[in-house]
């Protein structure tokens, strides 16, 4: 049997009668980098806060190494948190902030000094010990917050949108740093973000949440390439979501064309949703050579590629291509069978 460090069973939490977290189940392995991803209000932060012990679940269990964690107060959990706004103590300098947890544990003085200095060095904060936290930049404060949590050598580190307040460039750097750190210290990271790119970059496992429910759990590749449903497809990356009919195994029909695909196991003539990523549509200049034809209605230069909207009588397609086709030109589009992702249609939504 596989060992899980954290298990959530049927976990629920309501505020003012609204279920923010709706009976979720999740298993997290040791040393895994797990990201809870979703739009704001999807329950990801509440889930994290329940693991940290700052919120009591209304229902359900949290297990830590197989033992029930619910009744354990936060100060007795072997879990540390990096808070969204860092929450560095304003009346202490960097050193004292980092040493706080060790002082509480009443460790010998030289051990405290040694461990704090080691972690400050690891975080590139060697000469910052005596600095006051307000005099640090956002990125430095961020690193102090992480150091303050990591110095306690927790089994699990919870990170609540820790990079949210940083600018794009610093965020990218910190993503890499965090990932390196997680690999080197071997601690389970549970990371909350609404930034899908961040989630895909850093995680071993991505948990996509919406309206208190888990939509999909999987590796970044799974989530991106094989979204479970419309929400995941729409939330993760750009996508064309198309209503189609699954004629039979490996045959799907939309836009008056029958496409080969690789999906099986749907009923005959079952209505389905098809996802095609914008970069998976190849444009050909001769419309006759394309499976679908259309007219370019807008072109936007995005740096690495052009983003084009191509319209036919059924819908608009978003296409990413390094080649530019001028507005108004008539083109054809092809798509590989493996790039057509078929999903079950949910309910009767349009």
């Amino acid at each position: 049997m596989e060992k899980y460090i954290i298990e959530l069973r049927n976990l629920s939490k309501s505020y003012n009668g609204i279920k923010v977290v709706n009976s979720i189940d999740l298993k997290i392995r040791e040393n895994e980098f797990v990201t809870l991803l979703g739009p704001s209000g999807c329950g990801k932060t509440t889930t994290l806060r329940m693991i940290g012990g700052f919120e009591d679940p209304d229902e359900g269990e949290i297990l830590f190494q197989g033992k029930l964690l619910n009744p354990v107060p936060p100060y007795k959990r072997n879990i540390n948190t990096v808070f969204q706004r860092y929450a560095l103590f304003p009346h202490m300098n960097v050193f004292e902030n980092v040493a706080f947890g060790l002082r509480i544990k009443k460790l010998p003085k030289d051990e405290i000094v040694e461990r704090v200095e080691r972690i400050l060095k690891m975080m590139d904060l060697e000469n910052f010990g005596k600095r006051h936290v307000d005099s640090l930049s956002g990125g430095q404060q961020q690193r102090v917050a992480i150091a303050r949590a990591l110095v306690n050598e927790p089994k699990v580190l919870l990170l609540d949108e820790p990079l949210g307040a940083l600018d794009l460039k610093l965020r990218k750097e910190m993503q890499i740093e965090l990932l390196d750190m997680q690999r080197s210290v071997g601690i389970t990271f549970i990371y909350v973000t609404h930034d899908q790119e961040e989630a895909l970059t850093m995680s071993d496992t991505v948990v996509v949440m919406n309206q208190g429910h888990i939509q999909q759990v999987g590796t970044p590749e799974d989530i991106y390439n094989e979204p479970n449903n419309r929400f995941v497809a729409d939330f993760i990356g750009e996508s064309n979501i198309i209503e189609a009919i699954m004629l039979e195994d490996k045959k799907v029909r939309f836009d008056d064309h029958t496409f080969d695909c690789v999906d099986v196991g749907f009923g005959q003539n079952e209505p389905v949703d098809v996802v095609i990523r914008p970069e998976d549509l190849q444009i050909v200049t001769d419309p006759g050579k394309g499976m679908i034809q259309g007219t370019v209605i807008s072109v936007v230069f995005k740096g690495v590629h052009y983003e084009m909207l191509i319209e036919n009588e059924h819908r608009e397609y978003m296409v990413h291509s390094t080649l530019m086709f001028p507005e108004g030109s008539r083109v054809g589009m092809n798509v590989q069978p493996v790039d057509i992702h078929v999903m079950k249609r949910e309910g009767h939504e349009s």
Partner: protein
Amino acid sequence: MKRMKILAYPYSVWMAIFIVVPILLVLLYSLTEGDIRNLAELRFSTQSYERVLEPIYLKVIVNSFILATLSTLFCLLLGYPVAMIVARSNPKVRGMLLMFLIVPMWMNFLLRTYAWMSILSPNGFLNRLMDLLGLPRLEIMPGKTAVLLGMIYNFLPFMILPIYTVLSKIDKQFLEAANDLGANNMRTFFKIILPLSIPGVVSGITMVFLPAVSTFVISGLLGGGKTPLIGDLIEHQFMWEGNWHFGSSLSIILMVMILISMAIMSRIDRNGQQEKNGQSKV
């Protein structure tokens, strides 16, 4: 900006006439003797300052300080937990609790003190309650205890409000972070909440100690004149004895003592600030 300065002129004139001039006059009277109505005939003299050093007056000053210190201390001990309860209560209850604290302040100071008289006096509510319960009567009033009670009651809101303001501004994330790092609620209080609330405590102490040390009337009403305070002494010199010179020197001495205590308090506050600026020990 220059144009705005003009707006400050009337205020400056007002301040000069009603604050600076009187203080200078008090200083002048305290260092002279002679007829106060005839400024030209005043002679320099340290006589009234020497009189302050007489044991009977020194005792009054020391008494005032002890009572003011005690009432400040009790206000702090009572006020801090109350401020904490108010700051932690949910918003609906909080408004009501604050009302309870502030409403008595809308009533006149004298009236409130009279209310205490009717509670504490030998045949007051308290002793009637003791009679009902078959307990011995308490002889609180007139006496120091009654004066102290009256002072604590009157000045308590001035301790609670600044502490409450500071406490309610402390980010809850700090408390969660301390909890997260292994501190239980008690240690979180001593390591996070208390240090962060020091500015409120300092201004609370200042706001209670200053009026407490210079208060009068309370001791007359509740203390039966047995324990005159420096405020009563000054009032007496001006209103009844007509010895403005002695009254002025008492006032100046009180002012100097208040300035010294304020300097000490602001130093404590500044030390806290300095620690904030990164000068603290490692």
